[in-house]
């Protein structure tokens, strides 16, 4: 038994840490945040080079055929750096849907490109299909800013089309987290026949399995942001003086930090376990995944609230990096279900 990453998995994580040190320093992240669409092609290329985009894609389709556990190790580091890349959409949800819906030829064609970064796919929901046309608005679509293609999912049926398709309008929304943008995607009479229809209908069980992977990856993103939040808060508390003392020697401050780590550290074990249970298709995954996500939302919210306060007024400034992690966690909290809904889901799954 080995609870936690194996040696090989730790190597993968360390390599990601190094990569992000190069490609997602906080200066770089801030630079990208200032741009129109917050897309960092260099970061994407570096992640692709390392194989981070194809961790969930099987080897026969050009991925590494590893699992959600490995993906989550990377997601956590991206969260820690508030890196401007939506891994959950591009490398979890999209490939899993293509895998489930595509026939062999379609998987061959698409998954290779997803794994290599040649195609970055975003997922669009809430659109209707009628009279041979797609119509409607997908309001909070994640990762469209970084995407080359869209995957439209309607009741388990999936189609792929380039973002730049006649009749598709993308309007960027402004969430508080400027490192990962959301968009409103409007379909105005796009002909269904112009889109590539994936052969298989994805069952509702498979759809919830995909959502569970998204929940776990998002929890990992928050976890990373929390660890970083604690780190920068503790670091600050060790340097700042008031009343002739290092503020980190005040118990009010120390105890905030102790509470943060006492809450966040066990979440690490829960995230690891959830990813493992997903990979191994354990029976308990149906309640563990939503529970893990809900827990990360609660713990995360508390953690960044406390960490921000450790900085005093500086914590409220744009200049202080803390708000990057604060916002990351805030946005993650709303993804793949609100905590109350997720706990409800977990309870239902458990009593079923």
């Amino acid at each position, binding site marked *: 038994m080995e609870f936690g990453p194996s040696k090989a998995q730790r190597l993968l994580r360390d390599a990601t840490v190094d990569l992000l040190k190069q490609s997602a320093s906080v200066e770089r992240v801030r630079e990208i945040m200032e741009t129109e669409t917050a897309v960092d092609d260099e970061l994407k290329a570096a992640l692709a080079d390392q194989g981070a985009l194809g961790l969930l894609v099987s080897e026969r389709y050009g991925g590494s055929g590893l699992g959600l556990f490995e993906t989550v190790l990377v997601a956590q580091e991206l969260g820690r750096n508030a890196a401007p890349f939506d891994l959950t959409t591009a490398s979890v949800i999209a490939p899993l849907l293509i895998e489930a819906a595509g026939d062999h030829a379609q998987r061959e064609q698409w998954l290779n490109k997803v794994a290599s970064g040649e195609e970055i796919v975003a997922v669009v929901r809430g659109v209707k299909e009628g009279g041979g046309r797609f119509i409607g608005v997908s309001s909070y679509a994640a990762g469209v800013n970084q995407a080359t293609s869209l995957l439209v999912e309607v009741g388990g049926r999936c189609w792929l089309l380039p973002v730049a398709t006649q009749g598709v309008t993308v309007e960027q929304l402004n969430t508080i987290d400027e490192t990962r943008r959301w968009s409103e995607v409007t379909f105005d009479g796009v002909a269904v026949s112009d889109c590539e229809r994936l052969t298989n209908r994805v069952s509702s069980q498979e759809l919830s399995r995909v959502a569970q992977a998204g929940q776990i990856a998002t929890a990992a993103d928050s976890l990373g942001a929390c660890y970083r939040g604690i780190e920068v808060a503790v670091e600050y508390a060790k340097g700042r003086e008031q009343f002739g003392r290092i503020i980190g020697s005040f118990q009010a401050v120390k105890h905030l930090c102790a509470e943060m780590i*006492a809450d966040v550290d066990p979440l690490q074990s829960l995230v690891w376990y959830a990813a493992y249970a997903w990979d191994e298709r354990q029976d308990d995954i149906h309640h563990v995944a939503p529970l893990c996500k809900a827990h990360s939302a609660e713990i995360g919210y508390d953690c960044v609230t406390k960490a921000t306060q450790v900085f005093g007024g500086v914590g409220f400034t744009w200049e202080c990096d803390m708000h990057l992690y604060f916002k990351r966690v805030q946005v993650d909290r709303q993804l793949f279900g609100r905590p109350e809904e997720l706990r409800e889901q977990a309870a239902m799954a458990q009593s079923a």
Partner: protein
Amino acid sequence: MDLELSEQYESLRMEVRDFLQVNRAQALAARDLYGEGRDRAVAWQTILVEKGFVARTLPKHFGGFGAEPDLLETMVIQQEFARAKLPLGLSNQGIDMFVPTLLVFGTEEQQERYIGPTIRGEMIWCQGYSEPGSGSDLASLRTRAVRQGDRYVINGQKIWTSTAKQADMMFALVRTDTAHKHAGISYIVLSMDTPGIDVRPLMTMNGEASFNEVFFTDVEVPCENVVGEEGQGWNVGTTTLKFERGMLGRPELSERLYLGCVDILERVGLKNNGAFRDRLMRLQARLLAHKLHGMRLVTDRLENRDSGVSSLIVKLNGCQLNYDLCALAIDAMGERGVLRFGSKHVEDGGSWQTTHMYSLGLIIGGGTAQIQKNIISEAGLGMPREPKPAKAPRSA
């Protein structure tokens, strides 16, 4: 990540499972070590030791089972007892705190004399640390041990000493040197029958006399009863505290309380109440994270990795979780939740109130939550210690 266990562990698992199925009645009857059930409790514990489910890795000549240390075997055994909703033998200050300390610091002779009877439950221990003036600031303790020839003569007072009335023995911290705060402390064991010891029960908020004041008047204890060297007591004593915090933060009790909560919600018809269910699921998430965190610590030990701050948070989290679980059960029962044992209409014999208050006691005992946070932030996160207060200005 790999949670597969090899065949050897799975067969141990089945062995434990079968054993518990066959012997369930005896396990359930083995309660109340401190009262009338003592013989039954000792008999059951002795069987568990013989089977190697308890004290598994203790050498045979100390009364243990003598297996090679194997954390996974221990884990499997724990899991099976938890699955059967049975406690894994006796848990007390002697077995969980003193024995492991003695294995680190004791002489061969001390180990042979105390370990066997302690693990079987024949020898009950109490912990003489806290004093009226020394709780969180334990190292300020003043109970004095003065050496006279081959013995120490002890004078002073301990307080909050759990089970001192029932105990055969005490391990205590005493002051052998007044010139040095920490280096003046020694760790000593003594028989509670020694003349000059006076145990006076204190009533806890639960209305039980489970802890005591212990007075020492010219109590003579042989020098060979010191564990470690004279003056090394702080080091030995804090090792015991480390074991204590591990014990207090164990998830087994939390798990039993959680299952109890599920049962209560069902009984009072709130199983499908959204607000209560939400509260239950929040607690389940904490429990799950706490349990899995324990497995992560086991892996660290298997690989000789220092767990760092991760090992320091267990007591704080576990004790608060137990308290919050009891609070849910009590709230779910409403008016009935505040009835105490013996009352008409009381549920579960009033145990939820007792355990609720006892859990609060254990947020305080073994180092308060605030002290845990000091330790986590200082030893775990490297934050600065509280500066020593400036000496109060002398009035002219």
